[in-house]
């Protein structure tokens, strides 16, 4: 412990740094290993029969009893909105929460490309099994077969449901639904609504939710932020939330709690996530006993608009469909990097993806495209303005496409995206090659859940991007929307009833010790944040954390870098609790206070991500360890040692996290090393 970490200067929140090589059994001085865990709910037997079996075995709740059962759902994105609507329709008493001013604004709204479903409308050989297979392989064999199969199985129902709600998917002239191929798969199974698929799906779920609000089954709490879970006798029984308008700290009790709070990519400060996306809901649950699985699995998307300067607040994704017709290159010689790209002759350009991966070229999976962009920039061949010491950008060039197709045809296909690029950068992509760079986009890690989507706290369920379950170490395009809606409409409503059938649980008073304590801890934290009154803004801490994460726990990770990052994060966290400056008061809208709470949790999560990345000495999917690569620099998995889910248990304020391994067994798909050469 350093001198400053005495009880009086450290907030109740800040975990002390356990000294390295301290307690016996502490690996790297950073974590201990506990009992292995198993997903005990997944039925065995033929994979195509498992979900039906589970649905049949899950107990039913008498319709007359449903009204007496209260379910809290945090999040109104696809995963939470769909679940709230469905449970409301079924007659449960639902309380739904989001931090935005309306449930319609959850970050699912920003998804562009599309949603997968094994409808096989194109008769191109698609099937439930193929979607299952592609997803397992795309996840680099680090996801559960049973879960992924179920996802593929219910995917077709999602499209039916959305069409019935009036989601205006793209259609062909005959009036039937159109599909496209997406994310490097060989079948056309992606349903889309121009570049606004997420928006249209979310509006469908939102309208279904508002219908239940009108029907009185769902009570909506917008501009509310969940800050704590209430756990009583080992079961999740409610949440503590702050009304962001009045500042009031509220207690909400229930029979079960569902977290559908989205991903934690904002730990990197710059990401394609919304400004308010956070880890608070899941992190608070983690601290109360929910295991956090595979936190280091993050997806870095290759086609985003590069950082323009220090003021940048977020990054904007451009659909990867651009890689179908655009060619990616950098100058062969670093000396050319400042030149106008149009003046660099063909022979001085390095179309590096086409060079390294002749068979897939510009269409290699996201993780590979991203890492190669980083490599060429690290070599000093990046383009665009310097940010820090390096130029961080590569060209995405439509010159050939414009010659081949005509400007009109390009505009028809990509007009929206090219306009957006022009609006943000002020450059005309029809004349000058665009510049792109990878950005943090999605987090495959999340709270550990079993086949029922129940976390390690009974009564606490986790859906959508907030859980870890379906994408392994890398998510394929158009599959997050699929998972969010699968969880929300079809999976959770069927599994949570098995738990609710045991209720209603004993009535709980707000005066119960555990409730009072949860509330008091939230009050204390809010007062603490407002009382520090140091010198540095919340954003300055967030940016610094983001830089550490991006540098050492981003596209390439090494033991040395991760150890350094852990030290840096601990130092930063310590400084945060001594020196952050949060103005204003607790009893009004206070956006600095909101941000401060989120950053405080990111400062803890960041450390766990680094520990997870450090312990996994293999490369898989989005996790690339410098120490584990083939001779030509490709990711190398170690299935003998690492074919497991790493589920981390909170080690307590002063303790080290505890690793629980869940073995991944492949019965239906054979594990192979990916190759795109």
């Amino acid at each position: 412990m350093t001198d400053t970490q005495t009880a009086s200067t450290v907030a109740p929140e800040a975990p002390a740094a356990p000294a390295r090589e301290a307690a016996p059994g502490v690996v790297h001085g950073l974590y201990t290993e506990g009992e292995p865990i198993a997903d005990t709910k997944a039925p065995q037997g033929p994979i195509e029969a498992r979900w039906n079996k589970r649905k049949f075995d899950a107990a039913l709740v008498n319709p007359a009893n449903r009204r007496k059962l209260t379910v809290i759902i945090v999040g109104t994105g696809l995963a939470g909105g769909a679940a709230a609507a469905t449970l409301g329709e079924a007659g449960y008493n639902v309380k739904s929460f989001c931090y935005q001013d309306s449930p319609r604004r959850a970050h699912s709204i920003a998804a562009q490309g599309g949603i997968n479903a094994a409808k096989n409308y194109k008769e191109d050989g698609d099937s439930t099994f193929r979607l299952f297979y592609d997803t397992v392989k795309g996840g680099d064999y680090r996801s559960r077969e049973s879960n992924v199969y179920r996802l593929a199985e219910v995917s077709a129902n999602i499209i039916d449901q959305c069409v019935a709600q009036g989601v205006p998917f793209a259609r062909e002239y005959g009036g039937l639904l159109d599909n496209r191929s997406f994310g490097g798969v060989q079948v056309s199974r992606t349903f889309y609504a121009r570049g606004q698929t997420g928006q249209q799906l979310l509006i469908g779920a939102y309208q279904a939710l508002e219908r239940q609000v009108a029907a009185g089954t769902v009570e909506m709490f917008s501009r509310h932020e969940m800050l704590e879970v209430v756990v009583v006798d080992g079961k999740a029984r409610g949440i503590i939330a702050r009304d962001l308008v009045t500042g009031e700290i509220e207690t909400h009790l229930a029979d079960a709690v569902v977290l559908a709070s989205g991903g934690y990519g904002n730990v990197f400060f710059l990401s394609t996530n919304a400004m308010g996306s956070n880890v608070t809901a899941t992190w608070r649950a983690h601290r109360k006993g929910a295991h956090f699985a595979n936190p280091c699995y993050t997806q870095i998307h290759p086609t985003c608009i590069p950082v323009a300067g220090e003021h940048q607040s977020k990054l904007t994704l451009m659909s990867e469909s651009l890689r179908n017709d655009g060619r990616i290159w950098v100058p062969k010689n670093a000396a050319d990097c400042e030149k106008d790209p149009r003046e660099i002759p063909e022979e001085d350009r390095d179309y590096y993806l086409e060079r390294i991966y002749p068979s897939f070229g510009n269409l290699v999976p996201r993780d590979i495209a991203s890492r190669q962009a980083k490599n060429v920039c690290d070599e000093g061949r990046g383009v665009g303005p310097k940010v820090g010491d390096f130029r961080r950008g590569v060209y995405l060039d439509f010159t050939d496409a414009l010659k081949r197709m005509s400007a009109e045809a390009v505009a028809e296909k990509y007009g929206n995206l090219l306009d957006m690029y022009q609006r943000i950068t002020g450059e005309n992509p029809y004349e000058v090659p665009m510049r792109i760079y990878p950005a943090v986009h999605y987090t495959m890690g999340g709270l550990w859940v079993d086949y029922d989507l129940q976390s390690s706290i009974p009564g606490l369920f986790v859906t959508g991007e907030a859980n870890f379950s379906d994408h392994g170490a890398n998510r394929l395009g158009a599959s997050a929307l699929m998972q969010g809606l699968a969880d929300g409409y079809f999976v959770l409503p069927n599994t949570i009833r098995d738990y609710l059938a045991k209720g209603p649980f004993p009535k709980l008073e707000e005066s119960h010790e555990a409730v009072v304590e949860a509330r008091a801890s939230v009050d204390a934290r809010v007062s603490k944040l407002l009382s520090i009154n140091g010198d540095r803004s919340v954003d300055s801490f967030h940016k610094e954390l983001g830089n550490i994460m991006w540098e050492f726990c981003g596209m390439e990770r090494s033991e040395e870098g991760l150890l350094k990052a852990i030290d840096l994060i601990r130092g930063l966290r310590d400084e945060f609790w001594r020196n952050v400056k949060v103005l204003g008061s607790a009893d009004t809208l206070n956006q600095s206070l909101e941000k401060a709470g989120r950053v405080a949790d990111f400062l803890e999560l960041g450390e766990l991500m680094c520990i997870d990345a450090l312990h996994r000495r293999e490369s898989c999917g989005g996790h690339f360890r410098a120490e584990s690569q083939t001779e030509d620099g490709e990711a190398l998995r170690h299935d003998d040692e690492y074919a497991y889910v790493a589920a981390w248990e909170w080690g307590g304020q002063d303790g080290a996290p505890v690793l629980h391994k869940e073995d991944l067994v492949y019965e239906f798909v054979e594990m192979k090393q990916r190759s795109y050469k």
Partner: protein
Amino acid sequence: MNLTLKIWRQSGPKAKGEMVTYPVTDISEDMSFLEMLDVLNEQLNARGEEPIAFDSDCREGICGMCGLMISGKAHGPEVTTTCQLHMRSFSDGDEITIEPWRADAFPVIKDLVVDRGSFDRIIQAGGFISANTGSAPEAHSVPVPKPKADRAFMAAACIGCGACVAACPNASGMLFMGAKITHLGELPQGQPERDARVVSMVTQHDLEGFGGCTNIGECSSACPKEIPLDVINQLNKDLRGALMRGE
């Protein structure tokens, strides 16, 4: 570039507000409008003044959370959302006034933040198709002619930002509502509830304190998603039909 900002400050829903002047310097043209405000907020924080509250989330022009009156124009001088407006649309030395949406149905919460809950309540009144989960027929059982699907999509692109209301001298919500009526009314799935939907949404709209439409068209010019005025004609037509049929 250097700019003079005149910004509405109001400490709470019931407090009296006022315009406060803030000079900002060294603004790069690559910044978005909201990043410019972020920079100002960092400076205020450093000086011990409470930062200016304003809403934003996606900062990509799709969630509809942001929305400022910028020198009298909803979302500023370009046809886009406030978050997608960039400083290259302004010049060195400009004076810019920044205010919240002004409408009885959108009360101010603090500074530039307003309450748009009235939009949600209009949707609750009927802006949906009743289709319980699990009850849906196979998606291809009802083909939708492409022109209808395309028009439904065009109208469904509304992001619920409220700029139409802020831009309208009557503070009418008709463009927002017309967009939803058109989206659902174009689709075969939306027919069974079509009459009831329009009547109850319009009733709710009036209850919330939105004004009536007098065909000025400011709403559509301010709309970042370019929702056309003809959705209001559609709404009126649907409403007349529904009333005639005795809804």
